[in-house]
């Protein structure tokens, strides 16, 4: 079972440049077609299950807008059991 992760995009920083969308190995990030940030951008967001918390989106993000979380090892064991 793959590791579960999630991202939180700080909309104060995100400019919708799509570098994270392009870089995501799981292809689970897209620009939110509905939401618009205070600066007028469609922010990046997780659009489907499958985030592994690999952090690649954060590595390419020019705005340091993404916080990446990953399921802790202990939690995984619990879930697997």
């Amino acid at each position, binding site marked *: 079972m793959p590791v579960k992760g999630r991202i939180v995009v700080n909309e104060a920083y995100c400019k919708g440049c799509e570098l994270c969308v392009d870089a995501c190995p799981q292809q689970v990030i897209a620009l939110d077609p509905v939401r618009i940030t205070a600066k007028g951008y469609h922010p990046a967001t997780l659009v489907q299950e499958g985030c592994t918390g690999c952090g690649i989106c954060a590595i390419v993000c020019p705005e340091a807008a993404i916080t990446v979380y990953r*399921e802790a090892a202990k939690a995984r064991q619990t879930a697997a059991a």
Partner: protein
Amino acid sequence: MVMLDEVVVYQRPQSLEECATHYCPGCTHGVAHRLIAEVIDEMGLRERMIGVASVGCSVFAYNYFDFDFVQAPHGRAPAMATGIKRVLPDRIVMTYQGDGDMASIGMGEIVHAAARGENITVFFLNNANYGMTGGQMAPTTLPGQQTTSSPKGRDVETQGYPVRASELLATLEGASYVVRRSLHDPKNIRMAKKAIRTAFEVQVRGLGFSMIELLSICPTNWGMTPVQSLHWLEEHMIPYYPIGDYKVHPIVAELKI
């Protein structure tokens, strides 16, 4: 979806101010800022940092890094950094300069800071054009590259050849660590961060001048999307500006980092 028992894999570094940047969407200045801030956090250098901002798109760098900063005249950041470092030798002094600033108007200052082996760290963002003033030809603009001041593409017959700053500075005895990295994909970004780490280690240990050239994109002035820009960088810039270590002093090569 709230997940319990999770760990933070990545979060914004402390050495970045809590504010939005003025950079265009996708601009890799932001990536460079972030990497530098991350390394400063990891090495615990923030309290000892003094940055020198330059003129160009990164003119407001001092607004984004959360440590002491001064603002230099166009091209003169290495000279200001020299003044600071000579008075406060145990502070960690960095400049952050673009290609217009460092490789054009500031060529004298950078060459001599390197020649003196000045114990400072220089971050050199190369995006092959003058970004802030609207995309004019820079000393780093590629042959044939169109800019607003080389509308038919840079003609080397009349407009000369691009400057390869890393190769040039690497010839100087005083330079201890001069490398070129790129910010166009995760692998290269990780390599860039490692180089930034090495550069600061060089300074912390008093080993002399270090410069990290970072190949960057300028989607707005290149007239491309950020993702297209990354591909353009990879296809066009890297062949002319190969990624590599141009000067690694033997003592630096032995550093265990």
